[in-house]
């Protein structure tokens, strides 16, 4: 019943199921073992079982929806909403049932770093598939490969208006009089790589934007213009006719020697290897696992590793597992709503009743899976619905507004009262199984004095110990 098993489960994972901490003798080993490609499927919920499609299928339906009018369009939008709900519910289910929750947490981290939000209408259908295709399989390799996978995914190209960016002096530009859209270039610099402190200027943004022209989404109508060598299964296509010719500069480097698709790819790889990128990315990682003001020694260790290895990600995760600073304090991060929901689910769920077979979400009877989505909405963090490309903020202040804390308390009350009948036994015993040495005296006492078992469970869920990791 070591403290560290609880910390491993709560800080690196999404929280324990009752008694799970006792089964982990070697917390660090348990975490290291989760950094394998197999971990991607350790939740036991295949895309087929969840009835989730690929990007190409989704894109085709999106294009059809765009062309539709009137009633057909309404139906198409309805369908996209259902898709979104299914994706969001699947995501919550996977996090709740994974045997490699550290892997899952890292997927959420990177999806947030490379945010694609559903606020723009058409993306309702693509945000979930983006996470599954671009992020999930690429978090154990090098940062530059993850960056490329994210940037080249149709969801990102649509989200940041890249799909319509055309070089004014390109073949197509001269005919259509359309122009460059700088959105993606700006966000790559500001949010994905070197950050606002990276010293880039408007010229740099424009340079990168020019290099990116031609990077777009596969569209059946224009397939003959695409350079087949660079098309991907997910739906990326490169259109040389849209590419802006001429010299481009980015952060003091000229890219005139190369041209075409390779320009932007080289530029992105160069960006990924810059020290500013290392600093930005490593600080965010450290913040996620060691506290809102991450310890300098940890950040330094991560940056050094990143720079030495040219951006390899697995060594960074290993540092997080091994570095003392991450294990020193019992509670360092206020839970974000989605984390809280998954951890509450794991604490209270009825695992005996877990169904198998095709279309698991149907078998679950909508209730549980979609119940998590309703909760997410109530608590102010609907999956894939960050309000800007910056993603969800990873500091307590963002989630601890006065009203938000009261809503959490009420939500915990509901959860506690509803589960009281089903969960037999003393709620304090349940708290011991979930929090172990993290269960403090005051929480225990208030639980013992509660008016009802439901209220006791609610107090546990709303307690500072449960609300932090």
């Amino acid at each position, binding site marked *: 019943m070591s403290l560290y098993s609880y910390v491993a489960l709560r800080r690196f994972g999404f929280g324990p199921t009752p008694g799970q901490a006792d089964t982990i003798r070697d917390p660090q080993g348990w975490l290291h073992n989760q950094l394998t490609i197999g971990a991607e499927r350790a939740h036991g919920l295949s895309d087929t079982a969840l009835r989730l499609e690929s990007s190409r299928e989704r894109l085709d339906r999106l294009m059809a929806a765009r062309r539709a009018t009137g009633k057909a369009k309404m139906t198409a939008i309805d369908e996209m909403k259902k898709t979104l709900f299914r994706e969001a519910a699947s995501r919550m289910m996977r996090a709740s049932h994974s045997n490699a929750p550290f892997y899952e947490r890292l997927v959420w981290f990177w999806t947030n770093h490379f945010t694609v939000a559903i606020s723009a209408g058409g993306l309702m259908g693509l945000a979930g598939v983006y996470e599954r295709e671009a992020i999930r399989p690429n978090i154990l390799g090098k940062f530059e490969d993850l960056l490329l996978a994210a940037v080249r995914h149709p969801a990102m190209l649509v989200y940041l208006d890249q799909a319509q960016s055309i070089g004014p002096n390109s073949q197509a530009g001269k005919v259509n009089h359309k122009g460059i859209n700088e959105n993606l270039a700006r966000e790559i610099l500001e949010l994905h790589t070197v950050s606002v402190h990276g010293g880039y200027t408007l010229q740099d943004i424009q340079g990168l934007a020019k290099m990116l022209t031609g990077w777009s989404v596969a569209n059946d109508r224009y397939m003959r213009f695409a350079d087949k060598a660079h098309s991907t299964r997910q739906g990326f296509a490169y259109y040389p006719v849209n590419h802006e010719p001429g010299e481009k500069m980015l952060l003091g480097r000229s890219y005139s020697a190369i041209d075409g698709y390779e320009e932007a790819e080289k530029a992105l790889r160069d960006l990924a290897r810059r020290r500013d990128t290392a600093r930005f990315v490593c600080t965010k990682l450290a913040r996620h696992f060691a506290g809102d003001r991450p310890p300098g020694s940890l950040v330094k260790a991560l940056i050094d590793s990143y720079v030495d290895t040219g951006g390899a990600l697995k060594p960074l995760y290993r540092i997080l597992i091994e570095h003392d600073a991450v294990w020193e304090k019992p509670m360092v991060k206020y839970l974000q709503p989605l984390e809280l929901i998954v951890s509450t689910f794991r604490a209270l769920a009825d695992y005996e009743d877990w169904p198998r077979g095709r279309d698991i979400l149907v078998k679950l009877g909508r209730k549980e899976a979609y119940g998590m989505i309703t909760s997410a909405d*109530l608590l102010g963090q609907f999956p894939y619905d960050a309000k800007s490309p*910056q993603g969800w903020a990873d500091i307590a202040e963002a989630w*601890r507004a006065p*009203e938000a804390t009261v809503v959490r308390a009420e*939500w915990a009350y509901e959860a506690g009262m509803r589960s009281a009948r089903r969960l037999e036994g003393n709620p304090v015993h349940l708290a011991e199984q979930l929090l172990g040495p993290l269960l403090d005296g005051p929480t225990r006492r208030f639980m013992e004095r509660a008016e009802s078992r439901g209220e006791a469970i609610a107090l546990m869920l709303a*307690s500072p110990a449960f609300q932090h990791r």
Partner: protein
Amino acid sequence: MITRRQVIGSGLAGGALAGLGPMGSAFARSKDPRFVFVLLRGGMDGMAALPPYGDPGYERARGELVLEKAVKLDETFGLHPNLGRLKPYWSRGELAVAPAIATPYRDRSHFDVQIVLETGLETPKPNSDGWLNRVIAQTGHEAVAIGHTVPQILNGQAPVTSWAPPRMPGASPTYLESLSKLYARDQNLSEAFEAGLRARNLVEMRDDAGQMNKNFGKKGSRPKLHDLARAASHFLRDPKGPRIAVVDSAGWDTHANQGTLEGRLARQLLFLGQALDTFKGELGQVWDDTVIVAATEFGRTARINGTKGTDHGTGGAAFVMGGAVKGGKILGEWPGLSGKGLYEGRDVLPTADIRGLCAAILLNHMKLDDQIVFGSAFPGLADRAVLGQFV
């Protein structure tokens, strides 16, 4: 000490932008000014809310989305019928409208222009604090955000209360009390929780008829904009409460099938009209000391698109209401809908800066110093951009 205000007042010749002028010295003397900012997210279609029926280009621009009926304001403008309940305010001089107003940033991306609208800057800086937070950080005013999260306009160093209508049946008071005690040792959590409880109590106590709780307690009922307006009013009329409120309203992005007298946009406008109409009754005596601004990040295209809607534009409409307003007037010049008068050949050309509208309110209604307004809230705003004669 000569302030900029006086310099502007002393005979500035009528400049390029009409509708401005020397600031009247006879502004209403508000004793304890209140300010409400209603944020309409998505780009409200100004030409639907405030149809310029008197403009010769109106019918051609709007095609099948032309409004057959409008409530007349003057020879050029009307109100969408669903905003008809605002006409008496116009007649009484408690409503002014700006038909061609925009932020200083020329772009059509929701999040970028909303950031500019909320941060008071000239280009989007997503990490910046909100202009209203910068103001209260210096004045010490209390502010409340009606909604689950604090919008960027109120983000910053100064602490802000937030309140949202409860969507769950209430938790037992004993439970909440226990939590209060349990949180006592975590200073941040405790402060937030106590503030949240106080806000809840304030709103609940205020409701004499028990009306609000009845509506919100219902399963599945989503609070309407007028409920949020009512909540804001309750906060503002409490002598010990905040003086500034921000209300968030979404759903204004009408790219397809926006409708005319009925339909999606008409419904939104109905809710907006109800909300704006709610303030007067709920604020009571405080109405005379109040100015409410309803503004959006940009207007929409003058012409309709291929899906019976409109796309992102530039110049849009803003409403200014309150007992402290000297209304019954159009703020800013109407540039017209002839091809050349349109911005980039497609949008209503903005002739007024939304910062100038808000600056006038901060200066003349909230009585703030030039330094706070020009140095902090809206750095880079020129004196002559401050709109005159309505507050």
